């Protein structure tokens, strides 16, 4: 049985400690939602699982399907079935979307996918996400709007068929209709495939559509609360304020807005 296990994970970026001992287990076919105020380490956790070279793993373990994830390269993790729908996908000029996707699909196949089959699958996915068919010929994410980039992440997820998918604020930048389309596509993948999910989201709406089986709250680099869907409603009603008091964590100070007192040009 495929299972993701994280043990006492410490991660830093530019010598700043972000994760301070995360423990998490995700079993086959579960949907976990990861919530928490900004800047507490949600994206860091997802990036660390995927293997983003910007982050340094200080200590701890990550196991997936009984394999030591931390010893695997980024592409090996992907081929092992791990997927990350990114918050800010890269724009890559000159790399054609369909060339890229075909290369990614072929990377996990023994025999390369036929052009005909590829086109059919791609068209299907593009259609499901309500995108224009010219997306296949455009450069990867280049000139895509925020919403198009997010939908393109889900197109990739559909075609690559991961068994463990992480979605990092995939719902930000989407309007209400697009949110529904994306949530439906994710739900459909979950219903029809052997898939578990780890979703980072701030919005009850997206979580309401995807119905997580487990909900966690990450505060100051640790998972402090875990529960079921009730927790989403509690956060939605009460916000995160109570957490700071309960766990004695200092609320990050909001940076005062920079005031430009006088503009040089007007002097």
């Amino acid at each position, binding site marked *: 049985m495929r299972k993701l296990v994280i043990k006492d994970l410490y991660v830093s970026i530019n010598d700043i400690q972000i994760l301070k001992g995360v423990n998490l287990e995700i079993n086959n076919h579960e949907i976990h939602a990861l919530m928490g105020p900004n800047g507490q380490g949600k994206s860091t956790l997802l990036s660390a699982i995927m293997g983003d070279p910007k982050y340094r793993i200080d200590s701890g373990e990550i196991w997936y399907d009984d394999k030591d994830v931390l010893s695997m390269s980024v*592409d090996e993790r*992907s081929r092992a079935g791990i997927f*990350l729908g990114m918050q800010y996908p890269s724009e890559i000029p000159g790399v054609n979307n369909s060339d890229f996707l075909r290369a990614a699909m072929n990377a996990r196949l023994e025999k390369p996918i036929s052009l005909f089959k590829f086109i059919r699958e791609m068209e299907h996915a593009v259609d499901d996400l309500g995108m224009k068919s010219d997306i296949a010929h455009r450069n990867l994410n280049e000139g895509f709007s925020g919403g198009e980039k997010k939908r393109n992440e889900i197109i990739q997820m559909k075609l690559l068929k991961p068994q463990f998918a992480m979605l990092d604020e995939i719902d930000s930048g989407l309007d209400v209709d697009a949110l529904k389309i994306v949530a439906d596509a994710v739900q459909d993948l979950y219903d029809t495939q052997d898939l578990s999910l780890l979703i980072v989201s701030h919005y009850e709406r997206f979580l309401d559509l995807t119905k997580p089986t487990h909900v966690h709250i990450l505060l100051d680099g640790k998972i402090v609360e875990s529960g079921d869907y009730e927790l989403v409603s509690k956060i939605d009603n009460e916000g995160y304020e109570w957490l700071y008091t309960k766990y004695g964590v200092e609320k990050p100070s909001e940076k005062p807005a920079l005031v430009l007192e006088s503009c040089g040009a007007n002097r």
Partner: protein
Amino acid sequence: MEKITEKTTIEIQKDGYYEYTVETIETLSFHVLKNVHAEIKLILKGSLELQQDILLEPSSSLHMLSMNECKDSKMNLTYHLKKDSELKIGYYELNENTCDLKAKFYLEENGASVDVVTTSITSAKKIYDIGCIHIAANTNSNMSNYEISKQHANYKITACGTIKKGAYQSKSHQTSRILTLHEDQRSEAIPVLLIDENDVEASHANSMGKMNAEDLYYLQSRGISDEQAKELLTMSYLLPITDVLDNEEVNAELVTMIRSRMGL
């Protein structure tokens, strides 16, 4: 395919697609007659020291792909564009050899336009000097240079747009992108705009550097190996050349060639 081995002037009288191989000659001229629309694929071989003159008569168009397969080459190319003529030209060099290329495009009459694309992979000395000279009003030039500098590369490109007095409402744009794949190389891009008229449009953009680590990570996070991700990113510097000709067969061949080089 016609093989040219002697000094010649080739007059293009009819619309169509032409292929030539050039070896061991010193001068070669093309003359595209009025209202003629031609596509030419030119393959350069051997060791060349070539003087090339190309004339586009009014309302003619020429799309030309110049594939340099020479061991070493020194080329001096001059183009004269008359009224409303259109030139699209691509230089394509994937060899590991030395090259010294000088190309001047004279936009001599109203409405002439030129589009220049150079793509190269370098591991030796390559010097490019490309200039678009706007003499008449309402003329357009657009230069795009793509370079991949490997170990031992010594690449230098001077891209110069000149808008002379009287060439009002002209547009001169240029972009150079250099990808460096090794520490031990030297690459240089010198953008120049010389403008002597008002009411014109001109721009230049340069980028030089190693592959973006975030781009690599993104591709790898989809299961693409480090090596193949680098190849994909490299390919983006080579593919623009496949837009020069309209001939789909030739373009498809080129794409296949580039892709197979990249293991796709």
